[in-house]
C-alpha cells in the first residue's frame, strides 16, 4: 500500500461559529487504503470535521484536496462527485425493499431491448451484481431478495456500508466517511462491521471513522487522530499506541503532541 498522494487531505481547517472556534487549524490526511480513526470527547469537533469533509459544512479557512486536487465543497453532492461518501449513522436504507434493490438504488440495471426502453428493470442482473459485489467485499448476507426490514442490525449496517463502498469504488481511490458505524450494534455484529471496514480498506478505499469505541479503533485503524476542543492534539500510528496516553489525549489531561502549533 505505497501511495504518495493522500486520498483526502485537509490543511489549516478552521471553523468558527461566531466567536466559538469549533475547529482550530486542523491538518489531517488519509492515504488510499488507510483507516484513520478520528477520536475525541463530545464537543471536541469530530462531527464538525466530518461534516467539513463530507461537504455539509464549509470551513471558515483551509483547503480540502482529493487525490491531490483541491476542491471546494458547496454541498454534499459536490463531495460525492469528488469521490467522498458519507455513510450515515441512521442507516439510509429503504426498509421494505430487498437487498438487491437497495444496493442498486439510483443505478438500476434495465432490461435489454424494448422492455428496457419502457423502464423495465433487470432484477436478475441486479441480484447477480449485488451478490458479486458483496462477495468481493467478503460479506455473505441473507439472500438478495430479503427485504432489509427483515435483517438484523449488523446485516443492515453491512448492507449500508457495502452500498457506499460500491458507490465510491467507481472512482479511483474513493473515500468513505463513517460516523459511529457500530453505535447500535452488539458484540458479534461489531466484529462483522470491523472486518468489513478492514476489507474495504484493503481494496484501496480511504476510510475516516469517527467513534467513541476505543477497542474498535485498535482493531481497524491504521492511524489515530485525536481532537480536543477543536484542536488536533495527537496523530499517531494505532499499532503500538499507548492506550493510557490515548485516553489522556481524549480527556485533555495529557499535553498535546503539537505544543508549539501556531494558529495561522
Amino acid at each position, binding site marked *: 500500500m505505497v501511495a504518495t498522494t493522500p486520498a483526502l487531505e485537509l490543511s489549516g481547517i478552521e471553523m468558527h461559529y461566531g466567536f466559538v472556534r469549533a475547529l482550530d487549524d486542523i491538518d489531517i490526511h488519509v492515504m488510499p487504503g488507510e483507516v484513520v480513526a478520528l477520536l475525541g470527547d463530545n464537543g471536541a469537533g469530530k462531527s464538525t470535521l466530518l461534516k467539513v469533509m463530507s461537504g455539509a459544512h464549509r470551513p471558515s479557512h483551509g483547503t480540502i484536496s482529493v487525490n491531490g486536487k483541491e476542491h471546494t465543497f458547496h454541498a454534499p*453532492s459536490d463531495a*460525492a462527485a469528488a469521490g467522498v461518501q458519507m455513510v*450515515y449513522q441512521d442507516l*439510509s*436504507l*429503504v*426498509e*421494505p*425493499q430487498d437487498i438487491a*434493490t*437497495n444496493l442498486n*438504488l*439510483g443505478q*438500476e440495471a*434495465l432490461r435489454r431491448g424494448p422492455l428496457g426502453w*419502457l*423502464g*423495465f*428493470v433487470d*432484477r436478475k442482473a441486479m*441480484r447477480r451484481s449485488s451478490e458479486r459485489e458483496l*462477495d468481493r467485499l*467478503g*460479506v*455473505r*448476507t*441473507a*439472500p*438478495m*431478495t*430479503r427485504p432489509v426490514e*427483515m435483517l*438484523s442490525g*449488523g*446485516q443492515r449496517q*453491512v448492507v449500508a456500508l457495502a452500498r457506499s463502498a460500491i458507490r465510491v469504488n467507481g472512482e479511483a481511490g474513493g473515500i468513505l466517511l463513517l460516523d459511529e458505524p457500530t453505535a447500535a450494534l*452488539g458484540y*458479534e*455484529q461489531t*466484529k*462483522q462491521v470491523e*472486518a*468489513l471496514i478492514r476489507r474495504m480498506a484493503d481494496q484501496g478505499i480511504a476510510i475516516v471513522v469517527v467513534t467513541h469505541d476505543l477497542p474498535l479503533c485498535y482493531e481497524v485503524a491504521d492511524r489515530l487522530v485525536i481532537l480536543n476542543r477543536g484542536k488536533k492534539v495527537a496523530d499517531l500510528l494505532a499499532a503500538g499506541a499507548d492506550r493510557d496516553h490515548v485516553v489522556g489525549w481524549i480527556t485533555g489531561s495529557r499535553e498535546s503532541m503539537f505544543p508549539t502549533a501556531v494558529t495561522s
Partner: protein
Amino acid sequence: MTTNPDVAASGVTTNPGAAPPNPAGQDMPRSISVLVFMRDRGIFVLWGLLIAFFAFWCSPYFFTVDNSLLIANAAALTALFAAGVGIGVMTGVLDLSLPGTAAVASCVCGWLLTEGYATWIGLAAGMACGAVVGIVNGLITIRGFNPIIVTIGTLSVLSGLAAVIAGGYTFPGLNQLEFMGTRRYLAFGDSFTGIPAPVFIVAGVFVIGTIFLTRTRDGIRLMAVGGNAEAVRRAGINSNRYLVLGFVISGLLAALGGLVSTAVVTEANPAASPAIIFNALTAVALAGVALTGGRGSLPRVLVGALILATITNGLTIRGIQPYWATTLTGALLLGSLAIERVIQSSVSERLMSANLSVHQKKV
C-alpha cells in the same frame, strides 16, 4: 430453531472462505416463512374464507357466475379509487382530494359532451384534469407542506369548482359514455350476458399498475420514496419528482373513477362525496398497506375492495339490513389490524433469535 443448520447462512459471515452456499430464500426457518406468508398473503386467505362461508350460507344464490359478476361490478368503483389512494399511500402521501378530482373530471367531461364535443375529447379532458390536480398537489407538497392538509384544501377548491362548472345542476343524459358504463362485453350464448365494462377497466388498471410498481425503474423508485425518501435522495435521485409522480397517478386514477361512475349513471354530478375516500381507505387498510408508506401491493388492494363488495353482497342475499355490512367491515378491519400486529412482532422476534443464534455459533 437454534439447531437448524440452514439458519446459519442468514448471518453475515466474516470469513469468506467459511461462507456456506446460500441458496436464495432457503435459509429461513419454516415458521417464519409461514408467518411472512400470512402477513403478505393473509388477505387472499381471508377472502377465500369469506367466499366459502357465503357460498354455504347463501346457497344457492351466492356461488354463481352472475353473482360473481355482480360483486366484481360493485367492487369496480371502490377498487379504482382504492388504487389511487393505495398508490398514493405507498408513495408516502395520503391524497384526500380524490372525490374532488373525480367530481371535477366528470363535470368537465359532462360539460364538454353536453356542448356537443366528441366523446374522446370529453374523456381526455377529464383525465387531464386528474393529471393537473396531481401536479398541483405535488408541487405544493414538495414545498414542505403536510400532504393531508394540502389535499384537504384542494378537495374544497375542487368540489367548489365542480359545482361552478355544473352551475349548481348536474349534466344528465350522457348516453355516449354507456360503452364504459353499463354495457357488457364477451356475451356467450344465452346464459352468459357478458362482463360489465368497469370490470375490464379495473382489470387493466391493476395489471398495468402492478407491473409498473414491481417491474419498472420508476415504479420501484416510487415505492422506495414511500419507504425512505431520505435514502432515495442520498442515492442521488430527485425524490421530489417521484412524489409528484405519485400524486399524478393518484389524480389520474381518481379522474378515471369519476368518469366511470359518470358513465354508469349517465350523469355527471358535481357532489364530491367523502364516502368515496373512506370506502377506498377501508379497502387499502384491509389490504394491509401501511399508512407510513413504501409497503403494500395493488393485488392486495383489489382484494380489499372485493372483500367489501363480497360482504355487502352476501348479507344482501340473506336479506340482512345493509347497515350490518358496514359494521362487519369495520370489525374485520380492526381484527386484521390486531392479527397483523401479532404476526409482525412474532416475525421480528423469531428473526432476532435466529440471527443471534447464528452469531453465537459462527464466531
